[in-house]
């Protein structure tokens, strides 16, 4: 019967129509195949041992939002802790600026050279000294006496030259060559460059 010929069709209730779905039953042959396949799959499931991480994976899938929230919180807390305790200085890495410093009798000249992704803290165990410890990872001796060129790494445009440790006249060190160099300015002196 064409679909448009609805007026001649007998009308029934929705519930009766839905009950018709109960009659959609498979044949005996279907169930025979079903049982055979299921038995095979069950045996495979019995033989196949799930790897140890499967239970954790199921747990993560079932609690996806909770796991994501917890992971985010842990990462955030770790980030705060690392930053707070100075385990790692993000600023040194992201904002380090290499400058060339020339020192003569009473003149200190700083020329920015480039941006670098490395930095080294001299007084890394003493937070008070860290503000003075953003610089000097390499020293290149100049031909003239008391006139040296410094390749400096700084976290900010303003820096201070001062002894890194009490009773220690050194304010620079050379971590690449394990050399120390005498201080030229025992008194802290602030410099800035443009």
């Amino acid at each position, binding site marked *: *019967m064409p*679909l448009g010929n*609805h007026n001649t*069709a*007998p*009308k*029934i*209730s*929705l*519930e*009766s*129509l*839905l*009950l*018709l*779905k*109960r*009659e*959609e*039953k*498979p044949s005996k042959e*279907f*169930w025979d*195949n*079903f*049982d055979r*396949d*299921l038995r095979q*799959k*069950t045996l495979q*499931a*019995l033989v196949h041992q799930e790897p140890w991480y499967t239970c954790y994976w199921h747990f993560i899938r079932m609690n996806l939002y909770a796991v994501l929230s917890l992971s985010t919180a842990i990462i955030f807390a770790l980030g705060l802790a690392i930053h707070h305790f100075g385990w790692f200085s993000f600023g040194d890495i992201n904002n380090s600026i290499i400058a060339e410093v020339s020192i003569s009798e009473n003149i200190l000249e700083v020329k920015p050279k480039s941006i670098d992704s490395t930095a080294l803290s001299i007084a890394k165990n003493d937070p008070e000294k860290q503000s003075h410890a953003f610089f000097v990872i390499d020293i290149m001796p100049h031909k003239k006496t008391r006139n040296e060129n410094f390749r400096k790494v700084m976290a900010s445009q303003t820096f201070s030259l001062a002894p890194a440790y009490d009773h220690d006249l050194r304010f620079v060190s050379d971590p690449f060559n394990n050399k120390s160099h005498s201080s030229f300015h025992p008194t802290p002196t602030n410099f800035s460059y443009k």
Partner: protein
Amino acid sequence: MVQRVQSGDVAAFDQLILKYRERLYSIIYNLCSNREDAADLTQETFIKAFSSIKRFKGKASFYTWLYRIAVNSTLTYLKRNRMRHFFSFENINEEVSSSEIVEALSVKIKSEKAALMNELQEKLNEALQKLSDKHRTVVVLYEIEGLSHQDISNVMGCSVGTIRSRLHYAKQQLQAYLKDYLD
């Protein structure tokens, strides 16, 4: 029987399969409207149940727990294969149909009756597929499988009020889709 399976009796699980396979298959089939997929999903449900039956604590009835696995597996499958089986409906065996619809149709000549039945079946399947998965699940569990509101709320993990509301809305939608054929 469940306790026997929990203690490792595989033969007891075979009895559980025999007891629940037809109803489980019917639920899944009416949700996905494809015979092969329904068979696979029913088998998958039994294997999942077998694998995790030691976690069944008996707080809810076993069939509720089993139905829940089946419904969740099917809804997950439908999400992944939304359009794949939209038109793959099965034809019912007319000889076994003995409901009110058959009586109503008996006033027509035989060939016309068969055509009308197929048309109605097709329209009903289309209308069911137009419902959202959650609304279709409620209709299948309540109207076709005859579960109570409380049982459906346990299976679907939501309140009885939500189930009633979904059922009301779903039937309204079906009435609208099938208005040319219904009282």
